């Protein structure tokens, strides 16, 4: 009996074009759109070598030697143009250099717009000037201390040891795609809704017919939800495959745990839809609206449109982050990707398990009734 119902529920779900669109096609389209817009932003954030003109007006050999060494190799800081002042100004006007450093009695920096490159140039020039000034002062006032100079320079800022917490690189863009994945899992709620509609006699004629049949409601519910879980999990896997292999989104190296998390997220999404459908009194439109609103708003608060929002919510309103299933899902995927330890991952998974149990339990509590007051 279980497999008989399961088989037909699979067919019914797979033929439901509207649900297929919202739970599979729409997330893929949205992911592609986000990738095209945010991927470009990411590229803009990568460091570009700074085109810099240097005009040697004072014979500062040390400085020239420094900028030349910083203009060599693949990871160089500058594209150096050692030139005259006139030519440097022409290059700056033409936009071919971001700034002109002129050595002399007093080192000067000339720029004609503000930006990241110009800020880096200013920081570099200021640092150099401060260091030269300090060394000159020491030489004048305490020449015997000059032998300590290498130690002084080497001890610049190293008071903290950099111990990476992960082999992975931190990446805010991932938050966007993980929250989109969370939204897709929550869209599984539509399948949960379909399954409850199919067994609640006061919601559909087909369900009334099911209730006339000699079969326990729990069996009806479990076989329907099992079919929904199989279909939705397959769709989520397809979506993840698209993210990973087409868009190149990195899910880290713990594939097994990612799969288990995906399964749990899918289950949470379906049970969420079942919960809303069985609990909310009102038409299908209202229930669909609630499902959409919670899924989309939850995903946005988890960083789908603005990654930093997730941290703002976590800092300013931690309870809101905890009661947002999308946030828990996003967090679980990010924890798996970024942290080598499991504390944060387990915290998120525990939250999801609690939600799933509450949603599923409340759903059964509502639908277990065998007689209706009205139909």
């Amino acid at each position, binding site marked *: *009996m279980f497999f*008989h119902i399961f088989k*037909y529920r699979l067919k019914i779900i797979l033929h439901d074009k509207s649900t297929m669109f919202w739970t599979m096609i729409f997330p893929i389209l949205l992911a592609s759109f986000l990738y095209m817009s945010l991927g470009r932003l990411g590229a803009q954030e990568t460091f570009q070598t700074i085109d810099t003109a240097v005009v040697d007006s004072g014979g500062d050999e040390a400085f020239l030697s420094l900028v030349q060494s910083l203009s060599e190799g693949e990871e160089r800081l500058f594209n150096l143009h050692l030139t005259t002042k006139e030519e440097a100004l022409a290059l700056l006007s033409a936009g071919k250099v971001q700034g002109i450093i002129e050595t002399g009695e007093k080192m000067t920096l000339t720029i004609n717009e503000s930006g990241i490159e110009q800020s880096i140039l200013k920081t570099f020039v200021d640092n150099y000037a401060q260091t030269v000034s300090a060394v000159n002062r020491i030489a004048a006032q305490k020449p015997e201390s000059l032998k300590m100079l290498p130690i002084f320079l080497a001890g610049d800022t190293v008071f903290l040891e950099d111990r990476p917490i992960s082999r992975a690189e931190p990446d805010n863009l991932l938050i966007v795609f993980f929250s989109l994945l969370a939204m897709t899992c929550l869209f599984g709620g539509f399948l949960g809704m379909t399954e409850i509609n199919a067994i609640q006699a006061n919601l559909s*004629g087909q369900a*009334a*017919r099911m209730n*006339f049949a*000699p079969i326990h409601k729990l069996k009806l519910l479990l076989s329907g939800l099992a079919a929904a879980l199989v279909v939705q999990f397959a769709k989520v896997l397809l979506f993840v495959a698209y993210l990973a292999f087409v868009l190149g989104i990195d899910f880290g190296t713990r594939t097994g745990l990612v799969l288990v998390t995906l399964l749990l997220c899918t289950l949470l999404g379906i049970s969420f839809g079942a919960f809303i459908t069985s609990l909310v009194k009102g038409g299908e439109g209202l229930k669909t609206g609630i499902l959409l609103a919670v899924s989309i708003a939850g995903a946005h608060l988890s960083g789908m449109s603005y990654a930093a929002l997730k941290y703002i919510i976590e800092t300013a309103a931690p309870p809101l982050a905890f009661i947002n299933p999308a946030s828990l899902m996003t967090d679980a995927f990010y924890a798996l990707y970024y942290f080598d330890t499991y504390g944060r991952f387990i915290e998120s998974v525990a939250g999801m398990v609690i939600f799933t149990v509450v949603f599923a339990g409340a759903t059964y509590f509502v639908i277990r009734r065998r*007689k209706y007051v009205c*139909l």
Partner: protein
Amino acid sequence: MIIKATNIVKRYGELLALDHLNLELKEGEILGLLGPNGSGKTTAINCILSLLGYEKGEISIFGKPMSPEAYDLKKEIGVVMQNVAVFNELTVVENIDYFCGLYVKDALKRKQLVYEAIDFVGLNEFKKFYPKKLSGGLLRRLNVACGIAHKPKLIILDEPTVALDPQSRNNILQGILELNRMGATVLYTSHYMEEVEQICSRIIILDKGRVIASGTKEALKDMISLGEKITVEVFGLSDGQLSALKSLPNIVSVVFTEKTLVVKSLKGKNNLENILALLKKQNISFGKIYSELPTLNDVFLEITGKELRD
């Protein structure tokens, strides 16, 4: 006794939907529940099937108390609901197999039953069709097939012919008679009195959740005073001639509109003869003439003071 419902009271808030309803269905019968829309027919069926809760009363089916968990009883019941309740995502054969599978586990036996049901409702040419491709009549037939494929001993049909063309309606009615001949006991609800008269061996008339009359169609018609309704095509009548007609024995009412004279009379052997004799005596020329026995609508009208179709 196949169904016994005793003193069922069901309320929807302030509305009393079933008012101490008593109903008995004997083996082999086709019992008709007749009543206008909102009279409580569907509510009665849903209570009998334990889908709806009720405030008071007892219901037993096949001699056992009916409850939502009475799976052994439910196995022997087939239900055809008023609204078509099939899945648009499944074909005709899949829909019937799905619902039949809730009653019959054995796949081979089920396959045979499904094809017999398809044959029975005449959907052989449409086995692979999806419901959206079926006409209203064919859809109703599919609805019937989904309810009866498992060959239940008791079949409950709730207005299965609503909004159907006469041909499709007749097909379904003939099918119900055939199921009854094959051994099924049938509870049939409708607000079409002609259908109920045509197929039911016994009739219960409901109004506002109460049983207002029950019995065979002949017994119901005997309950009322109206004997016959005589309609005559007449080309002109004076007030005096109308008064003369009204003074005839057994006459209840005389109505003349344009060229039609309608005379209602009490039961009596010579009503038609008396009217014809008066028309000849008064030299009133007339055309077509016909006499009708009372209908269930007349029964309902006389008991409740309103038309069944109101």
